[in-house]
């Protein structure tokens, strides 16, 4: 069964970029346009990995992580994709419960590799 992925990104172009990057691999991908939508998806499905943008309308990526972790969902792996690339931003994200942290701009090939590695484990 194909691993389930959620891509939450408010910038349509970037969302397209991520989805296109990962489409060659055998994943089942859902797309969310803002934080609230992302949260709803996570509640409804058991994803193997969530790719979460930081700055999003309705709920920020950080808020989504916090809420998910607070509700006891520690199984879902969350990868933070953000333009906030400073060290302290990464620390904040990891503290909130992010498992992986990738700063923008990112290399799609590398992203595909990392995602492959994570899901291959």
């Amino acid at each position, binding site marked *: 069964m194909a691993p389930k992925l959620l891509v939450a990104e408010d*910038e349509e*172009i*970037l969302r*397209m*970029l991520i989805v*296109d*990057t990962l489409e*060659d691999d055998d994943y089942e991908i859902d797309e969310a346009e803002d*934080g609230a939508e992302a949260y709803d998806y996570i509640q409804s499905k058991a994803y193997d990995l969530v790719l979460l943008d*930081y*700055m*999003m*309308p*309705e*709920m*920020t990526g*950080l*808020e989504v992580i916090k809420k998910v972790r607070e509700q006891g969902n520690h199984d879902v792996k969350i990868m933070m994709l953000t*333009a*906030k*690339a400073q060290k302290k931003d990464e620390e904040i994200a990891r503290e909130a419960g992010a498992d992986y942290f990738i*700063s*923008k*701009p*990112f*290399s*799609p*090939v590398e992203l595909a590799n990392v995602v492959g590695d994570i899901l291959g484990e």
Partner: protein
Amino acid sequence: MNRQWRSSLSRQFVWFMSGFLFLILIAAAGLGLYSQSIEAKYEEKVVDLRQKQQYAVELEDSLNDMFFEARGYLGFRVDDPFLSNYIVQKNMIVDKIKQLKPELESREEKAYITHLQGELVNYYNLFEAAQIQVASDNTEGLQKLSKDRGGSNLVYDLRDQTRDLVSEVENEIYTTEQDLVDRLSNLQMLFVSFVIFLLLIATILAGIMARRIGKPLQELALASSQVSSGENVEMPHVRRSDELGELARSFNLMVKNIQQNERALITSNDALVEQSEELKGSKFTLEQNVKAMNVQKKVLEHRNELNRSLASTLTKSELLQSIITNMIHILNSDKGIIVMLNQGKDYASLGVSQEKVHEWIDHLLDGPGVKAIEQKKFHIVQRQASIGEAGYHGVEEISNDIYIPVLSDNEPVALLCITRIGGEFTTDEVTELSDLSRQISLALDKLRLYETTENERQINREILNTIREGIQLVDREGTTRAVNDQMCTMLDACFPDGANEKPFTEWSSKFFKQVDINDRDEVSSYVHDVIAGVKPKQSELIYQTNTEPSLFIQMYYEHLYTDGKFIGSIFVHRDITREHEVDEMKNEFVSTVSHELRTPLSSVLGFTELMLSKELKPEKQKKYLNTIYKEAKRLTSLINDFLDIQRMEAGKQNYDKTRINLKEMIEEVLDNYRDHSKLHSFTIEDLAEKHEIIGDGDKIKQVFNNFVSNAVKYSPEGGTVLTRFRVENDQLYLDIRDEGLGIPQDALSKLFTKFFRVDNSDRRQIGGTGLGLAISKEIMTAHNGDVLVTSELGKGSTFTLVFPLGIEKQSVDSKSGELQDSGVLIVEDDESLALLLMEEITGNGFAVHHCRSGEEAIELLEQMTPEGIVLDIMLDGRMSGWDVLKTVKETERTKNIPIFVSTVSEEKQRGFELGAKDYLIKPYPPKNLTKSLIKSLVNKNNNGKILVPDYSIEDKEEGLSD
């Protein structure tokens, strides 16, 4: 005893009185006793006499009874009871006589009794005879017997005898009583005579006392009154030993003493008179001395005054004046002058006219004083007194000028010249002068030092106060030694009494109170460490104040050492509030920009990489390339925005101003948006007739784009975007109204601040750098316009762009102008700046001429004389602004024209040296130029005309494209 008696009058008086009283007592006692004895004797005698009288009466009664019984017996011849009674009575008579007999004293009485006894015997014999007759009853015998013997007569005789006795006794009693009365009257007589005697004695005593006291007193009084009236009298009663004697002796002694004193007084008076004569003599000498002393005193006063000024005067002119004035008085001279041998030739004089002084100073080096200066010792010149000098001293006087150099380190620093008219200077005076000159030298040295220190102190103070940082100097104990003005204004660290040298506790508590509570501990430990000479953990720190408004202050320190010894610290407080704010915004900006840049960058990089690493279908490739292109454009626009604001802030933004039509421009922009946004409708309302202004088309378009895009961006639900032109007060207004989210009231004021965004949270829906409005505002300001905003949250916002219309008119007018000898000439190769300056200057009523190169300017100046020249330094052509400046200033006709240099070059000094009136460093607010112009040209007439040189706007555009 006798002496005591005599020595006291009071004692005598007491003695007299007690003797007198004693006599009275004795006499009274004697009289009493005597009267008592008289009464006693009388009583005794009266008792005896009464007894005798009683006996005599009883005898008489018994006799009478016996006769009665005898006669009864003889008459009645009955024995019983007459005879027995007769016998009883007879015996009683015997008893009575026996009783009476011892009582009888006088002879007559005794004779009576003897006679009575004899008669009684006769009577008894007769009765016996009678008894015999009776017994014989012989009557005749009886009768015969009575007749013969006279019986009856005997009885009568006996009766008389007793009667006599009784009367004799009574008589005796009477006599005794009489005797008592006599004696008592005698006693009374005696008493009266005794009283008289006493009175007599009292009178005598009084007489004696009067004689012993009153008289001598009177005599003494008389004598003393004589003494007091000056007679030489010997006191009486001196020899007496009583109080009067004492008084007289004392008085005498006193008189003697007085006389003695008087004699002594007379003697001393003589001596005094003698002395007074002597004193009169010496008084004259003294007066002479006093006069001399007064002169000396004056000299001393002046010397003190001189010393005082030498020691304490710190003003040069005051010191010099004091020196010369006092020296002249000390030397008792007439006039003088002291001059410093420095460049300023500071001087002070007394008794010399200003004219003379200047003449004297001018000829200092070829006059007689030069000898004193060269030889470094005093020099005296003797000369005929001048007319002026001799005028009040008489004719033919000799004047002495003494020149004394004042040496410091053996170098003459001042020259003192003192003149005495009609008298020479003695050696002593010269020596004194030399001594004084050394003191003066010291004082001048001290003054110089003081002036230097004071100057340095002032300079230091000014330097400290010009520094923008607050500076506080504290010593090792933490006591403030100095604070500059900024420290006071920035932190209110000063005390109202101006005394800021306060101990640590006092200033620090005031200071710490102003530090925000969160920073206070840190600041406190920092300050403590620094004062203690310890290196604090951080070399500097930033704290926030809780003043209104709150400031951010950077604080750092420096330890001070003298000869390696720690002596104190300097605290520097730098107000970095603005920097801090900018920093904060920059941080936000970096974060924003980072996000805004990274997003398109991610797309560009990501899709490029995908294209490079993947085999893609041609359609996909095209799609990717399109995306890459769009995102790259977005990036470019972002970067342009950023560069724009940087350029504008630096004042380096160039505006290519041409005549532009705003209506055409907004239509173009709106058309563009119509194509893209399906949710919005765009309308234009036109209430203006003209839509042309002078401006930079690209920039204005950028402004329009910005506002229209904002209107679209911030009304995500769609709606109408209304644009409306209107004209008010010679200004063209363009409103751009949307029906979007609106702007909160508190954000309105910050709206045009760069990097400001109404919603800058991570959750924001609408992206952007926060630069658009700031850039638009800058552009509008550069066009002498403005941006206004009104908004209602939830209902939409209206931004109004304001363009001035007046400029356009003036610009058109100026084209036909001719060269005139007035107005301001602007030499500026940057057209937009020239236009800006022209607008500014004409707006203030000046006429303006403009040229672009130095050569052109010089050429123009040959035909006209402007009121002022605004000159750029870096110009087109071979001539620089410096060359123009020099040429103008060297030409006689133009050298008075004020030149205002307007340049980016910071060679202010050079500008002023070449004769510039003012020097403005670009970028500067245009109004600064007007201010400067007005200051210089305010009195000149302005005809309000502007002259633009004869090249058209088309030319300008050509020029720009070069």
